[in-house]
C-alpha cells in the first residue's frame, strides 16, 4: 500500500471516534450553551425566547449557588487533603517488606471498585446510622454520645465517604511511583549519610512530585463531578448544606424543570472544570512526547 493510501486509511480509522465524540459531547455542550441564553421551562412551555444573561443572573444570585460553590470547593479540598496525605503514607507503608503484602494491598484498593451508590448507602446506613451504625457503637464504647453524621455534619460525611473511595486510587498511584524509584539512588544517598527522614524529604517526595500532581488533577476532575453519593445519602440537604454544583444543576433541570437556569449552571460548572483541565491536559501532553 502506498504512503498516500495508507494515510487515507488512517484518517478513515480515526473518523468514527471523532464523530462520536463530537455528537456525544460537543453538540450537547454547544446546545447547553445555547439553552443557557433561552427561557425554557419544561413545566411552562409557553415561556420562551432569548433570555440574555438572566439565566446566569438567576443562577448566580440564587443563595443556593453560593453555597453549592463553597460546598464543591470544600468537598474537593477535603477529599484531596485526606487522600493525598493518606495516600503517601499508605504508599510508603505498603512499599515496606511485610508478610502477605500482596493480599493486604488488595484489601486496601478494594473500596475503589465499589460502585458509588453502594458505598454511599453502606456508609449511610450501616456505619453512620446514629441508632444502629458501627460508628454509634464505637462512640458508645468510648463513652461518647453517637454523632448524627448525615443530619448534623452532612458535608463532612460525604467528604469521608468520597475520601474512602479515592484513598485507594491515590495509594495505588503512589505505590506504583515508589516502585519505579531507583534503588541505586537510594543506596547512594545512604552512602552519602542520609538518614530515613532525609531520604524521604530529599529523594522520595521529589520523586513522587509528578504522581502527586497527577492524583490532584485526576481526583479534582472526578470529585468536581460527584453526584451519586449525594443523591443517595443526603439529597443535598438538610437545606442546601450538602449540595454541590452538579447536584444543584441536576435538581434545577430534572426536578424543577428549569432548563435555562440549569444550562447556565452547567456552563459555569464546565468553565470551572476547564480551569483544572487545562493543567491536566498540559501534564498529559508533556507525557505524550516522553
Amino acid at each position, binding site marked *: 500500500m502506498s504512503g498516500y493510501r*495508507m494515510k487515507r*486509511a*488512517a484518517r478513515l*480509522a*480515526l473518523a*468514527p*471516534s*471523532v464523530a*462520536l*465524540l463530537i455528537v*456525544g*459531547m460537543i453538540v*450537547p*455542550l454547544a*446546545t*447547553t450553551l445555547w439553552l443557557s441564553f433561552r427561557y425554557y421551562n419544561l413545566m411552562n412551555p409557553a415561556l420562551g425566547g432569548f433570555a440574555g444573561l438572566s439565566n446566569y443572573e438567576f443562577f448566580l444570585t440564587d443563595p443556593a449557588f453560593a453555597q453549592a460553590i463553597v460546598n464543591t470547593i470544600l468537598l474537593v479540598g477535603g477529599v484531596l487533603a485526606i487522600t493525598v496525605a493518606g495516600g503517601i503514607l499508605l504508599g510508603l507503608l505498603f512499599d*515496606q*517488606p*511485610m*508478610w502477605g503484602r500482596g493480599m*493486604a494491598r488488595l484489601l*486496601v484498593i*478494594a*473500596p*475503589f*471498585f*465499589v*460502585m*458509588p*451508590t*453502594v*458505598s*454511599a*448507602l*453502606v456508609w449511610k446506613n*450501616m*456505619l453512620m446510622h446514629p*441508632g*444502629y451504625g458501627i460508628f454509634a457503637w464505637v462512640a458508645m464504647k468510648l463513652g461518647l454520645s453517637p454523632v448524627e453524621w448525615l443530619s448534623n455534619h452532612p458535608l463532612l460525611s460525604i467528604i469521608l465517604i468520597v475520601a*474512602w473511595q479515592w*484513598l485507594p486510587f491515590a495509594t*495505588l*498511584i503512589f505505590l*506504583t511511583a515508589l516502585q519505579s524509584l531507583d534503588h541505586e539512588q537510594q543506596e547512594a544517598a545512604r552512602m552519602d549519610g542520609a538518614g530515613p527522614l532525609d531520604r524521604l524529604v530529599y529523594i522520595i517526595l521529589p520523586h513522587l512530585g*509528578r504522581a502527586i500532581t497527577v492524583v490532584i488533577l*485526576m481526583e479534582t476532575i472526578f470529585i468536581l463531578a460527584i*453526584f*451519586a453519593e449525594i*443523591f443517595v445519602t443526603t439529597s443535598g440537604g438538610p437545606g442546601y448544606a450538602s449540595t454541590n454544583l*452538579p447536584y444543584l444543576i*441536576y435538581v434545577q433541570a*430534572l426536578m424543577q424543570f428549569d*432548563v435555562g437556569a*440549569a444550562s447556565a449552571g*452547567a456552563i459555569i*460548572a*464546565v468553565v470551572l472544570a*476547564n480551569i483544572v*483541565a487545562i493543567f*491536566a491536559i498540559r501534564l498529559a501532553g508533556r507525557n505524550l512526547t516522553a
Partner: protein
Amino acid sequence: MRSLRPTLFKAAMTFLGWAVALLLFFPILWTVLTSFKSEVEAIAFPPAFWPSGWTLENYFEVQERSEYFGHFLNSVALSLGSTVIGMLIAIPAAWSMAFQPAASTRHVLMWMLSTKMMPAVGALVPVFLIFKSAGLLDTLPGITLIVLVGNLPIMVWMLYTYFKEIPADILEACRMDGATVWKELVHVLLPMSLPGVASTMLLNIILAWNEAFWTLSLTAVKAAPLSAFIASYSSPQGLFWAKLSAASTLAIVPILIIGWISQKQLVRGLTFGAVK
C-alpha cells in the same frame, strides 16, 4: 542480632499494614457479612459481628421483590456492550494515531482528553431532552451509547499508549516481510498488545459497571443497571439492611475481582498513561 532487626521491622510493618488494610476493607467485609444475617440481626445493637445463621434468604428475597437479576443483566449488557462496541471504534482510532500520525494527531489526542475532563453535567440537559424526544430514556441502547461516549477517550488513550510501546522496528520489519496492514494488525499488533487490549477492556467494564451519573439521570425501571437500582434502597422507610447488603454484595463482587486482576493497568488508564 543483626538478622533479627530486619525481621522485627518486617513484623511491625506486617502488623501495621494489615491493621490499616482491614480497617479500610471493613465496610466491604461488613456488607458481605450482613448479607448473610437475618434482618433482625442486621440492625442488632450492639452489632453482632458474625452472622449466627448464615442465611441465604436475603439473596432470594432481593430477587423475588425486585427482579434483581434483570438489573444485574442490565449492568452486564451495559458494561459488555459499551466495551465491545467501544473497542471496535477505539482500536482503529488508536492504531491510526499511533502508527500513522499526522500533524493534527497531538491535537486530536488532547481534544479527546479534554472531552473526558468536561463534567457530564454540562451535557445533561440536552442529552436528557434528546433522549426524551427520541424515546431513549430508560432504554439499554440509550444508556449504553452515552456511557460509551463517556469512556471512549479513555479507551483510545490507553490503547494509544500501549500501541506506542511496540517498537517501530518491529512494524517496519513486518512491512519488509510483506505483511499487509490487515495482516500486520492480526499477526503482530494485536498479539503483541494483547495485555494492553485486555486491560483496556477490563478498565472500561469497571467504569461502565460503576457509572452512576447517567444511569441515575437517564434510567428508571426497565433499563436501570445495578448502580441505579441500588439507589432505590436509599428511601428512608424501612431498614432492610440485610437485603441492601445482599444486593450490594452481588453488585460489587464481580467488579471487585476484575479490579483486583487489573489493578496495575488501572493506574495507567486512569492517569492517561502519566503514571505506569
